[in-house]
Each structure stands twice: as C-alpha cells, then as structure tokens.
C-alpha cells in the first residue's frame, strides 16, 4: 500500500463509521489536522517535484443534490442513446438498410435517420467537427468545463463504474476501512463482484460499439452464435479492455494526465466564465461551528466554511476546490451539492460553492455591483461560427444533388485517328446515383458541333443521346467515345461538357473535360 493511501485511511479511521450522528462526525473530522502528503501540485512553481508521483486512491463520497440529479439524468440519457440507438429502425425501402444509425464500411455509406452520406461527402463530418469544437468553446466560455463534468464519456462511464463500486464495496468510509483489512473472503467476494460487473459493463460498451457498423439484430445473433466476423470480436475485446481500464482503474488520471482538453480549456477560459468556485468572500476565515461561535463572541470575523472537507471527499478527481481554479477540477458540481447539504444542516445559506466567477467574487468583496457578462465578444463569436457553419451545412445538405458525374480523359492514346480520318477521344465517365431506385440518365456532350457519342456496353438511346442505367445507391463507370469529322486546328484542345439529365426530367449535372486533336 502506498504511503498516501495509508495515511488517508489512518485519517479516516479515527472516526468510527457508525454510532455517531453524521454531523458530529463531520465536525470532529474537520478538527483534525490534515496529515499525509499534500495532493500533487500540477503547477509547482519550483519545478522540483519528482517526475512520477504514486497515485492517491480516491474514494468519492456519495452525494445528493441538484447537480448530482443532473448528472444522473445526463448519464441515463447519454448511455441510453449509446446502448440502444443501434436498434432503432428507419425504413428506407428495399435497397438500403433499415438501421437508423449505421456506419456501413462494406458499402462505404453512413446512414443517420433521413441522411445518407457517401465517402466523398465526409466534408459534412468536417463541418460537424467544427460545430462540435465551437460548441465546446462556447460551453467553456459560458460555464467552464460543462463537457468535462457532465458529458464526457470518461466522466459518464467513470460515474457508472463508481456507482457499481459503491454498491459492491461500500461508500467512501466503508470502502476505505475494507481496503485496510486483509484479503478475507468478504473483501475478495465484493472485489470479485465489482470487477465482474465492471467487465460486464465494459463488454456491453464494446458490444454496443460494433453494432453501429453492421445490422444490429443480425450482428447480436451472429455474436451469440459465434458466427460474427473476427474483427467484431476484436473490437469488442479492445473496447472492453479500454473501458475497464479507463473508467475502472485510471479514472481521474485520464483527466489530469492524459486528456488534452484541460490544457486547451486553460488557454480558452477567461475571467467571465462561470466556473465551480468557492466563494471565499463568504467562506473565509474558516472555522468550526464552536470556534465560529467563540470568535463571534469576541467580535472577530468567522466565515461560513467549517472546513468539513465534504467538498473534497465527494470530488471524483480528489481536488480541493477551495484552493481556487484547478486543472484537476472537471467542474461536475458535486462539491456544490455536498456543501449545500452541510450548509442546510448547519443553517447557513446555500451555495458557498457555486457556479461563479473570480471577478464577481472580487466585485462583491469590494462592495461593487455583481460582475456577470454572458454576452461578450467570444461567446458571440463562437455562437456566430456555430450558426454560420451549421447554416452552410444545412444549406448544402438541403440543396445537394442526388446524382453526379465525373470524367477522366484517356491518357494513352490521347486521341485516335480512324480509318476515314475522323478523330476520336475516349473518356472514362462515372455516374453517381444516390437515389434508392435505378435511374436512367441521358448523356449529352456539348462543345463539339458534329460529334457522335458512343457508350461501350450500352446501346440504349434517347433521340441521338446515349441513355445509361445506374443501379440504386450506386455508381457506374462507362467508357465513352466521342468522335468528330470536324476539321480541327493543330494541337486542338476543345472544352467539352459532359451533361447527364435524369430520364423523365430533372435538373442536369455536368463535368468538364477536353477534346484533343493531333
């Protein structure tokens, strides 16, 4: 056992878990000096800290309150979406899968309810990523690390894993005491159940992941009967391992050491962002209830903070929020709930810890007006970018064509002289049909007045123009020969337009290439 854990337990053990009213226990605990090594300081000014520090195991205390409730709701909604979405059906007719959300690598299509994305349209993904990044920035500018605290998969799964841990090994105090015991049957059984449940959740997490890449009900059946492709089992295995490791074993270390977002966050935040903040103007100087009473008798000031450490004990990353803004703080707001509960018990006003700004606290301390500014340059700018990119994406999506054409000129030979002296150029033409039924396209070539157009392997015509059938949700590549008897200038390079019009009417799509002569 590492010295950090040992001293934390020694500290905890001084208070019996049962038999005392909770409040008295809290206050007794608050009286004791904090022993053991200090928490790792991420911004040690001397730079003298060792490169490696042993992890202090964190035993977050269970908590009730507004933010905990929000976190529960977010957890159920996000995990519900993640686990169940692959089973949602969406009828697209006989020529496309009926899974609402499907990333179909085999046929290179991405389906999202009424949207179907082809590989060459992944720029929608770029737009989506820009919107996502800007949404993160905006969240950050308004209320700090909302993403980290509530929405990040690491936070959500860690929350779920910690709930399982509390359920099997007990809440903070019970768990610390149990960890101090030797490995007896009870402890082994509880740890065993915990790790089993963790693995089950991790396994389901990996299992749900692969369902997004194939027809979910079929894949579930195949997985159960060992008929599924090896890659599916492989990915389930990998994601089981990562979920178990990241959410079960590494937890806050991911946020503190691995994740780049806290660093980006530190660069993006400003003095107006609402962060989980200890209102030191109210809390300081800290004093226990008794001490505060005696201080008040002597006419000396005493703050609202009674140093009960509940805010530290509930923290999933082991941060003391009273130390000010901290890279380790994911701003989940659980310390607000914990502090509110204590304040309610001792009859002091709630929100000694709250979503607030340093600037506002300074303003209050100096007796000036509260300083809140939600609407400011960066929030406006982020919102404007989100609206602009979202608008462009919506527009391009709403007006995107369901067909398309691309042309490549033969590279060798660039032209052919026929026996009667005519000049012929050959092209590879690819026609896209994103409709979910077969579509006939009429191919017109404009630019040469007297050119004849021939499509290899397709004799169908509409008038003098070739007609080409393209299957549902498919592309078709055809070889097109353009021949002219027209006299050409030496080294002629005449721009040609290849135009396809859906048979039976519709707007035309076109591509441009050249007709080359000797």
């Amino acid at each position: 056992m590492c010295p950090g854990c040992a001293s934390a337990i020694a500290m905890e053990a001084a208070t019996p878990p049962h038999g005392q009213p909770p409040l008295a226990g809290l206050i007794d605990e608050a009286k004791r000096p904090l022993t053991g090594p200090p928490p790792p300081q991420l911004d040690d000014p001397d730079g003298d800290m060792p490169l490696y520090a042993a992890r202090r195991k964190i035993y977050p205390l269970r908590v009730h309150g507004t933010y905990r409730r929000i976190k529960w709701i977010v957890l159920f909604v996000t995990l519900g979406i993640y686990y169940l979405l692959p089973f949602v059906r969406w009828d697209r007719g006989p020529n496309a899968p009926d899974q609402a959300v499907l990333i179909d690598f085999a046929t290179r299509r991405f389906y999202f309810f009424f949207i179907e994305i082809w590989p060459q349209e992944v720029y929608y993904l770029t737009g989506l990523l820009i919107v996502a990044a800007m949404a993160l920035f905006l969240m950050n500018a308004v209320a700090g690390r909302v993403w980290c605290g509530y929405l990040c998969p690491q936070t959500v799964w860690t929350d779920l894993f910690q709930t399982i841990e509390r359920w099997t090994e007990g809440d903070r105090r019970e768990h610390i005491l149990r960890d101090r015991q030797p490995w007896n049957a009870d402890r082994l059984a509880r740890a065993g159940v915990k790790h089993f449940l963790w693995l089950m959740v991790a396994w389901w997490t990996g299992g749900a992941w692969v369902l997004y890449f194939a027809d979910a009900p079929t894949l579930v059946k195949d997985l159960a009967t060992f008929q599924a492709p090896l890659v599916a089992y492989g990915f389930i295995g990998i994601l089981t391992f990562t979920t178990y490791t990241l959410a079960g074993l590494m937890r806050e270390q991911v946020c503190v050491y691995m994740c780049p977002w806290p660093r980006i966050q530190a660069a993006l935040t400003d003095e107006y962002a609402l962060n989980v903040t200890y209102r030191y103007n109210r809390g300081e100087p800290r004093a226990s209830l008794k001490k505060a009473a005696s201080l008040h008798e002597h006419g000396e000031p005493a703050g609202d903070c009674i140093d009960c450490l509940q805010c530290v004990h509930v923290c999933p990353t082991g941060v003391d929020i009273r130390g000010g803004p901290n890279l380790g703080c994911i701003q989940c707001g659980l310390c607000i709930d914990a502090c509110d509960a204590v304040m309610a018990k001792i009859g002091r006003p709630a929100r000694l810890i709250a979503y607030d700004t340093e600037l506002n606290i300074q303003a209050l301390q100096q007796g000036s007006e509260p300083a809140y500014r939600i609407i400011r340059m960066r929030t406006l700018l982020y919102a404007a970018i989100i609206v602009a990119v979202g608008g462009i994406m919506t527009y391009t999506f709403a007006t995107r064509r369901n067909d398309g054409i691309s042309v490549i000129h033969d590279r060798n030979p660039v032209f052919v002289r026929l026996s009667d002296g005519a000049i012929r150029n050959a092209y590879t033409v690819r026609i896209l049909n994103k409709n979910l039924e077969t579509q006939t396209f009429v191919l017109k070539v404009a630019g040469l007045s007297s050119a004849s157009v021939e499509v290899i392997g397709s004799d169908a015509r509409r008038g003098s123009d070739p007609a080409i059938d393209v299957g549902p949700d498919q592309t078709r590549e055809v070889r097109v020969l353009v021949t002219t008897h027209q006299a050409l200038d030496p080294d002629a390079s005449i721009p040609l337009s290849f135009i396809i019009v859906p048979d039976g009417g519709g707007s035309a799509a076109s591509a441009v290439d050249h007709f080359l002569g000797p």
Partner: protein
Amino acid sequence: MSERSERKPQPQGATTGHEWDGIHELNTPLPRWWLWLFYATIAWSAGYWVVYPSWPLISSYTNGAFGWHARGAVANDLAALKTQRSAMTARLETTPLADIESNPQLLDFARALGRAAFADNCAPCHGSGGGGARGYPNLTDDDWLWGGKLVDIEQTIRHGARSSDDKGRQGTMPAFGRDGMLKRDDIIAVANYVRSLSGLSTAPGADLKFGAKVFADNCAVCHGPDGKGNRTLGAANLTDKIWLYAPDTQTIIDGIWNGRGGVMPAWGTKLDDVTIKALTVYVHTFGGGEK
C-alpha cells in the same frame, strides 16, 4: 533554465565522468520498466528464429517451425484472390464471348481483368492504353489487319501472328527489292501509287500509271486490286488514313524493298482461357471493335 541549475547543483556521482570544456554529462538512467521492455523485445526476437526461416546453413537454411515461406505466402494470397473472384470468373467462362458486353457487371469485370492482363503482357508493344507504336498496331482505332470482331481478336491473341503456333495468322510482305523481284524504279513508282490511293501527295513527275501496273502485277494478289487489303493474309488496307509504319514515301519504299513481317506471340500457351477472354473484351472495347 541556467538559473535553476545553478540553484540546484547535482548530487555527487550523478555524472558519467565525461567532461568537455567543463561541461559534465549527467548520468540519467533509463526508467527500469523501459529497460525491462528492451530486454523483453530481445527475448521476443528469438521467437522469430524459431517461427520463420532464419539461419543460413552450409547448403540450405533453418526452416521455420510452421513451414512458413514468403513464396508460399504469395501463392496463398493469389489462391485467395482466385477464390474471391471465382464466382465472377466462372460466369465469364461460361458466358459466350458475344454476350459479355451487353451485361454491365460482366463487362466491368472482364475489362478490369483485361486491363491488368493487358498491362502485364501487351503494353510493352501496344502501349499502356493500346495506342500502339510504329510497327505495333494501334488497337484503339477501327483498322484491323486480321479482323476486329471478337472471334478474330481472340484468335489473334490466342495463336498470334507469324508466330510458332500452327494456327497463328500467316502472311508476309515479301522483300521485293532485296530479293530482286522489283527494280528500284518500279518500287519508287509503286510507292507513289500507294500514296495516291489514300489521297496523299505524290512526287512531281511520278508515273502513277506505271505504278498502278506494277501494283496490279505484284501487290494486288494480297492487297487487292483496289488496295483495300486482305484480312486473311494480314495485308494492310492501303486506302485508309492509318499507317502501321509511316505514310512517307521513304518508309513505304523501305517496306517494299525489305518486306514487313511483325510478329505477335501466341498467348494461348501462356494465358488461361478466362484471361484471354477478358483480354479480347478489353481490346474489343477500346473503341474500334467490330460487331
């Protein structure tokens, strides 16, 4: 940085003892786990000696425990590819040559297969796109020495032209000049006449009537009385705009004097039936294929 190192002198013995101009090299050992990882990779490498062919012996080498060979791996890959294609290959094999082009799926498959086979076998002479070269026919035009129908193309590919194959295309342009069949002046006259057949200019004062007589006596047997050629003998059509060698008088004279006889190998002995079928369709769909 410098300020900090002055503030914090390194403990005794923390350097390697190396010194350059008063600069000491710090001894910063690797992390232990890294070192063990390094040893582990060395131990792991021994596994390759066991699994794969590795140590050279006097006349051979140690075989891997599982009999793995690079050549065998390639053979396996090729076999796997063949299996993967087998359904389409079987369809191509059983479909009559004439019906392939009307089936888009089969046409795509045949052309894809043909493109690879063409690049491997035919491109050195006929060019990567079938454009040909001097003496090597352009396969994308509509002029064919031996016929441009699917069956003609298939026969030419399978048995070759002037090849060692008995069924190969036969027919040679004799060396009229070198073998003394025609005089120098006859040849110049007939060369001018041949140019005139396709409307090209002739040398001033060229006796085209005499040329026509020489042509009728010597050339018409193969190239036809009107010079339109004969596909049975591979005799070129001399009236069109397409020239296998070149249309200038000197090249024509050279051809008549020395004869011509380009050889196309018989590919039937080297390529399987499906590949030849695919090649036939590929060449036929360059654009000049005849119905």
